[in-house]
């Protein structure tokens, strides 16, 4: 799937997008960063097919698109399960209400969606976007309002996804999706972006340096700073053994283990 030369301008304003080119491929999730009002949501809406760009084209958008907007509103009067069934029918796929359980949905199942808390509404939004085997997944700030358990489930789901994925994220959790390409919207254009630095070392953390093919290092599933064939990690002391065992099993070799 390709996005070519996409421009978007609103009346009386400067262009929000000024020539965005982007390729989306299965297994290569794109994490999009950018300041407030930099046009991330606009680009996502165009990629998802909600809006047409002023100029440029989107090629090869699959039939079934899973889209989660920034702040999923859930002001409807139907219950969450009914909503998921209707959305699946509109996509002509089978509904997957069990996704709600997977995300730890704790809201009332038979009451209007308008009564849901922010976190539970977000889980309904995720369930509709990821259910029914979409051919493209576009998520705008999917971690907003999620509890820790649901955030981990979401990361695992996105890691296992075998279709193109475009996601924006302010929480830094998208950095843990292995193999992700990090891009940034600056002045209406997409530029390469360094992944967010791994979070500050926790108390009792251990600095680990591993050597191996870059692909394997990206696939470790823990935040790491990868340089050429080296990965620099900071892991809690309690998890060092498990991490080293896993890394050795994947064919990496250990360069150093030092107190952080």
């Amino acid at each position, binding site marked *: 799937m390709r996005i070519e030369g996409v421009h978007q301008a609103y009346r009386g304003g400067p262009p929000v997008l000024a020539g965005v080119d982007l390729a989306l491929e299965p297994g290569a999730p794109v994490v999009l960063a950018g300041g407030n009002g930099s046009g991330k949501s606009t680009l996502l809406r165009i990629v*998802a097919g909600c*809006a*047409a760009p002023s100029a440029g084209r989107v090629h090869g958008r699959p039939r079934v698109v899973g*889209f989660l907007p920034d702040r999923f509103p859930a*002001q409807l009067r139907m219950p969450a399960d009914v909503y998921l069934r209707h*959305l699946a*029918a*509109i996509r*002509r796929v089978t509904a997957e209400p069990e996704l709600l359980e997977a995300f730890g949905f704790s809201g009332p199942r038979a009451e209007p969606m308008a009564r849901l808390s922010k976190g539970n509404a977000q889980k309904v939004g995720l369930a509709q976007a990821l259910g029914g085997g979409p051919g493209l997944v576009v998520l705008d700030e999917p971690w907003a309002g999620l509890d820790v358990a649901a955030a981990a489930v979401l990361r695992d789901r996105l890691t296992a996804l075998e279709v193109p994925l475009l996601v924006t994220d302010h929480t830094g959790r998208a950095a843990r999706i292995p193999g992700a390409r990090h891009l940034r919207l600056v002045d209406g254009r997409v530029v390469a972006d360094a992944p967010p630095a791994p979070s500050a070392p926790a108390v009792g953390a251990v600095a680990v340096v591993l050597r191996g093919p870059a692909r394997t290092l990206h696939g470790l599933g823990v935040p790491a700073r990868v340089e050429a064939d080296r990965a620099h990690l900071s892991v809690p002391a309690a998890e060092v053994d498990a991490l080293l065992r896993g890394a050795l099993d994947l064919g990496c070799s250990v360069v150093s283990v030092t107190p952080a």
Partner: protein
Amino acid sequence: MTTLTTAVAVARYLLSDAVRSQRVIIPVVLQVAVLAVLFGGDPGPLPAPWAASALALYPVATWLALTVANTEDPVQRSVTVAAAGGPGPVAIGTLLVALLGDVLLSVLSVAWPLVATPYSAPPGTVLAGVLTHLAAAITGTGVGLLCARPVIRRIGWSLLTALIVVIVTAVQPWLPPVGSAVAAITDGRGPGSLLVPVLAACAVAGAGTWVSALVSRRG
């Protein structure tokens, strides 16, 4: 064909939320109240009284279409548009729900005096009555879609614009669809003279749907 399947799924979704909300009930109750007043005493021989009920149905259908089109929050609407693969099926689904309301209210309005008053009408006159109401209701649907989101985003402006359009177009007896349809039923002309108003009404509703999809796409 797939567009229509998707549009029907969208219509079922919107209908499901509409029946749960009290907002669509208000225009329906309004029409029922108008019918009760119009046909409660002695309205006189048919079809002339149908002119008044058809004229009342015009703003009611406009309000109904406005309500159905504004069911979803704009962000919620963007999710539905992405799911439907574009704004086209969503606009058509909205139209289908509004048309369902048009048909039900038209049938109710025509049947009421036949059941509740001693006057009767031959089949040809009944058909003319149905076509008059459909012309008014479907025009109202078109006007409602043109005044609702995403074309007019603020509900205050939506209601004001719709009100002005309805008042201006309803009272011109030469102007199809509503003015000429009401004039035809008042004069007791046959169903044939209502063909043009009904077709014009469908054109207005089609234009409303098309403009709605187009504006939604501009997003």
